[in-house]
């Protein structure tokens, strides 16, 4: 992480200020809609029904948030989203780490062929197999289960390739030392390699989590029972043309409320997102 100095080396003067203003301008564009949404969430619904402008002026209300606490499916959907996203994250980390280690560090018959298969799988778009996936899950009657919501994502090879890359970058000496220390192959993986790959796990974990949390198409067609809705599908269900005019403020409050935990999670893990990717040289 020597970059900070590297960049500062040639930064000075007028050009920097122009750049900085440009970045600030972009940041303003980026944050404006969010500020707006937060603003709307504090406005009474009947005011918003007539106009969504003037969010900085009174009247303000906390009713929308109070309503969430009083009666809203948002909690349940958040829980579903969390179960799905965390389930996907944990399982992805587990099988991607195992497979990544297998490909990066062990030898077994047919390894090269299987790895080519994994690389090829990278080209398969998830949206393009939704129709057959839906048919398959319908045949085995698994729709509206957490398993159905979680499982399809586990097949995508990004995590395996990321972990393979990362494990290749870890010095093999340490694993060799462990082998000489009479550790089994699995023990080497579990006790030595896995703890060493926590930064990569964090990266993969965050991306998997976000992906799972934000997934729309699959839950839309697989979670058809409202009690199995994830947040994305649930909020979309709230957004009927009718609801939009009857409760923009309430809807926005739910949006803010739903976005909050992930935002906090992000702020907490933020440094891992960059540094972990940096830790795995893309050779």
């Amino acid at each position, binding site marked *: 992480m020597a970059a900070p100095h590297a960049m500062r080396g040639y930064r000075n003067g007028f050009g920097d200020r122009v750049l900085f203003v440009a970045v600030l301008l972009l940041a303003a564009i980026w944050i404006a809609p969010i500020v707006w949404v937060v603003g709307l969430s504090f406005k009474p619904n009947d005011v918003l029904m007539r106009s*969504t402008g003037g969010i900085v002026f009174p009247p303000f209300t906390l009713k929308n948030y109070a*309503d969430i606490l009083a009666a809203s499916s948002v909690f349940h959907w958040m829980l579903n989203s969390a179960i799905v996203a965390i389930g996907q994250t944990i399982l992805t980390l587990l099988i991607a780490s195992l497979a990544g280690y297998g490909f990066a560090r062990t030898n077994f018959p047919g390894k090269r062929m299987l790895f080519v298969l994994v690389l090829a799988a990278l080209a398969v778009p998830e949206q393009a197999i939704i129709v057959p996936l839906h048919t398959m*899950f319908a045949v085995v009657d698994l729709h509206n289960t957490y398993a159905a919501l979680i499982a399809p994502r586990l097949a995508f090879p990004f995590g395996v390739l990321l972990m393979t890359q990362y494990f290749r970058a870890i010095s093999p000496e340490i694993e060799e030392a462990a082998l000489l220390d009479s550790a089994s192959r699995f023990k080497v993986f579990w006790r030595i390699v896995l703890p060493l790959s926590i930064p990569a796990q964090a990266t993969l974990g965050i991306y998997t989590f976000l992906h799972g949390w934000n997934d729309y198409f699959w839950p839309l067609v697989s979670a058809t029972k409202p009690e199995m809705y994830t947040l994305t599908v649930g909020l979309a269900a709230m957004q009927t043309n009718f609801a939009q005019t009857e409760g923009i403020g309430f809807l926005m409050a739910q949006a803010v409320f739903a976005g909050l935990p992930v935002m906090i999670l992000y702020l907490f893990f933020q440094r891992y997102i960059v540094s972990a990717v940096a830790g795995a040289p893309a050779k």
Partner: protein
Amino acid sequence: MLKRTFLGLAGGLLASVALCAPQAWAQAKTEITFARFFGACEGDYGTSQDVAKARGECGVMTTLTNLFNATNKDNILVKPQIIEWGPYYQQFNARMAAHDIPTIAVMHSAQLGDYVRYVEPMDDALKEAGIDTADFTPNARAAVTVGGKIYAMPWDTHSWLWHINLGMFKKAGLLDAGGQPILPKTVDEMIAQAKAVREKTGKPYIVMATSGPGDAANSGRSYYSWMYDQNATIFPNGFEKADFKTPESLATLKAFEALAKADAITKGLDSGGGLGGFLNGAGAIYLTGTWRIDDMLAAEAKPDSPLHEGYAARVFPNLFKTQSVWTDNHTWVLPKGTPAPQHKAALVFLKFLWDHNFDWARGGGHLPARQSLMAEYAKLPQRQYVVDIPTFGKALPHEARRQFGFQNMIGEEVVNIINSGKTAEQAADAMQERSVALLRGR
């Protein structure tokens, strides 16, 4: 540290799942699922049981459900499954494919023909529930009858209106001596009125939502209404081939073209923007259905509202031969595959709804499905002007497949005339072509 955080999070969540599991409800209750659109309004009506105070479709539906759950003697728990209106039927398909069968589902009568294979015939069930089918309005009866059998309990007749800002009509000189709005009788009259409104108020004549998901239906309903005024159909030669180039169809499309060319209709609003705009006085007429009457009346009552000078609900006007209008119906169906106890409980709930049909008509704005309620309905504000709709309103027969597909497709092409400047002929060509694809499936 990180690992521990992850594990902690996961553990906590799993624990809370266990706590929140559906077992929380009492064991003995018979749970039935109730799939519907009409929106969710837990914020305003989450616990309310006061049906009289409920406004709007969502408010009435939610309150009725709450009331039933609190008061029914049969220990039945109705669990609403609220799905967005736009993808409701996609979702319904997915549910059927996933063997996730709701006990009761709302269905537009326009869709009943496509889904009749998957729902229970209800002649006997309605009798068993004590619902008098003789009380169905003729419109409602036709809506739920396929091949001589009743497949749904009708809930309303809804139709397509002009919601009029009388203040702006007055400015444009479009009120008669009695203060009632003068409606156009031809396309030319309509355009002339539009010019008057534009001149006198600077605002567009018609406000209509065209851009949001599902908003295409608005244009589709308008198209059908003017087609029916000409006693025309899009299926002049049987239900396997549509024809959009009949003179009547082209005349209808030309009416939209004329509106667009005269800048008499708003472009690119979604329903939020449309309704909000109209309530703010952004146009003289709002094109939407019966379901908004109550909201408009509420707005009219507010002193600071641009509608305060007066509001009128009128049937979508006849510009051609004989007054008709598009109608559709919300109905309740019992999808096949429900176990007997739920089936029985569903009938109890349907009877409850049937008994509260007037609440729906009042709060939701739709016309009731029961003939016996019509007189009382007509006494509600503005309802006298729409109460006759069931006698002259029309819908496609159930033999016509993919009715929503058609309504949407037609609507999209009309929207293209309004928003994108397509000509009537171009739109008709596109409709013709797209209808082939629509009828291709089974």
